[in-house]
């Protein structure tokens, strides 16, 4: 009897471990910004450690859990695209700019929701709300923009065979949608235009 319980427990643990996986999200896309002229400022990109490591876990069945590496993706997305908004971008350790840095940009994730459908052939969707705060040389907040992005992905009846990549694609589309709005907002912000 004890042996059976032990074997059963090990089996359940093995299945649960095998079914908890982190999505492999492709490298963040380069976002197209029509006619963008970068501001002549050196910007610092600041994400606290906990924000960089932030993941969103979605339970897809009693034994499955899908983890979205959203913090890692956010860092990559802004590292890749912020140079279109500022003449130079370096990593920052705090909201107060270091020597030679004019302002600091701090992105954060306000909200994330994803649908991994059952049945698996239905649409894979994601919604994200991203926010950036911009800080001046004294570390005072001078600008905030929050933006909502949506993503949807699917391959019709074949969707179930590509569930992980479709879920990742929907999340990445949503993130790119929100990030594009934020980058456009930074390029048009009067608070940054008037910044000395």
């Amino acid at each position, binding site marked *: 009897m004890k042996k059976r319980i032990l074997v059963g427990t090990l089996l359940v643990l093995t299945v649960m471990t095998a079914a908890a996986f982190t999505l492999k999200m492709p490298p963040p896309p380069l976002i197209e910004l029509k006619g963008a002229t970068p501001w002549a400022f050196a910007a610092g990109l600041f994400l606290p450690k906990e924000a960089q490591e932030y993941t969103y876990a979605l339970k897809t069945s009693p034994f499955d859990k899908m983890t979205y590496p959203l913090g890692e993706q956010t860092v990559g997305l802004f590292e890749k695209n912020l140079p279109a908004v500022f003449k130079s971008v370096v990593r920052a350790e705090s909201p107060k700019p270091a020597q030679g840095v004019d302002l600091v940009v701090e992105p954060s994730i306000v909200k994330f929701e994803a*649908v991994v459908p059952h049945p698996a*052939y*239905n649409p894979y969707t994601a919604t994200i709300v991203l926010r950036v705060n911009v800080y001046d040389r004294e570390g005072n907040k001078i600008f905030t923009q929050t*933006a909502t992005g949506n993503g949807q992905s*699917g391959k*019709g009846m074949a969707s*179930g065979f590509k*569930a*992980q990549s479709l879920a990742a694609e929907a999340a990445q589309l949503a993130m790119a949608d929100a990030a594009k709005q934020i980058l456009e907002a930074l390029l048009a912000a009067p608070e940054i235009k008037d910044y000395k």
Partner: protein
Amino acid sequence: MSVRLSAQAEPGEVRQVSGTTPLEKVLDFGKAGRLWLEVEKRGYAPSSVEVTPDTKTITLPLERIGTKDGREAGKAAAPPLRKVLLVGPEVRVTLRRFAKEEVSADQGSRLGSTLADAVRACYSGRADVELLPVAQDGEEESTQKALWRDTRTSMELIDPVRLPYLSEAPRLETRSGRDAARKLGERFGADAILVVSGRQTVETGGMKVGKVALFAAGSAASYAAAYSAAMARGDSLFVYPVYLPAFSQGLLLQAALVRCGDGEVLWINRGVWSPVSPDDSAEAARVMKELFSSLQ
């Protein structure tokens, strides 16, 4: 009044119940055996209290608050709207075919026009409605985008039921967004801007046939083979239907009304309906009537 599962409210959290008092509801206290009731009223600081199944009576004093310029919040009566500037309706239509999905710009545009006519019909006799021409570039495009960004996020983060009771009236987040509302209001002589947006997912004939075939021919053998193939790719999500889909086919619409003068968000609503054909003006009118049902 609303009911939360945690002591501190999180942005965008789902509340168990939101409604105006008196409210009758059987509450599930869950394993923790406690909930938080929050009472909100325009012009007063929100007040919340922890309750358990043993709680009989609670008293929640509400404190009046002032605005930044010293006025009492929530005092100003909103004048009636004479003219409304309509932005959109922008609807992204996704066609779900047997083996792929594609966005139909044509259907989106046609459905947007049909819904715009339905909005005008809803406002008929109450206020003039003018459609904002979509700018393609330049400063005008930048103005419209600023308004759109802030309104879209308001629609996502503000609870439509709680909006009239929030301690302070929410406004568009950025100076650019508020300036855009003011400029457009002055240019078009409008009191408020109505933004309508959404997405529609439609299953095409091929997808429907595929679903029928799956249910008719789905044998244990085919399931096992497909499941094994999916597992070999590390994909354990291939399962036959167990749960109802969250939103597989239909029309999701969101709408917000923003005062031009100061960018205050006056009203928000959203909902999901069955797909609407771009040619079905009667159905579009029905949907819009329902969407605007909470708009005074």
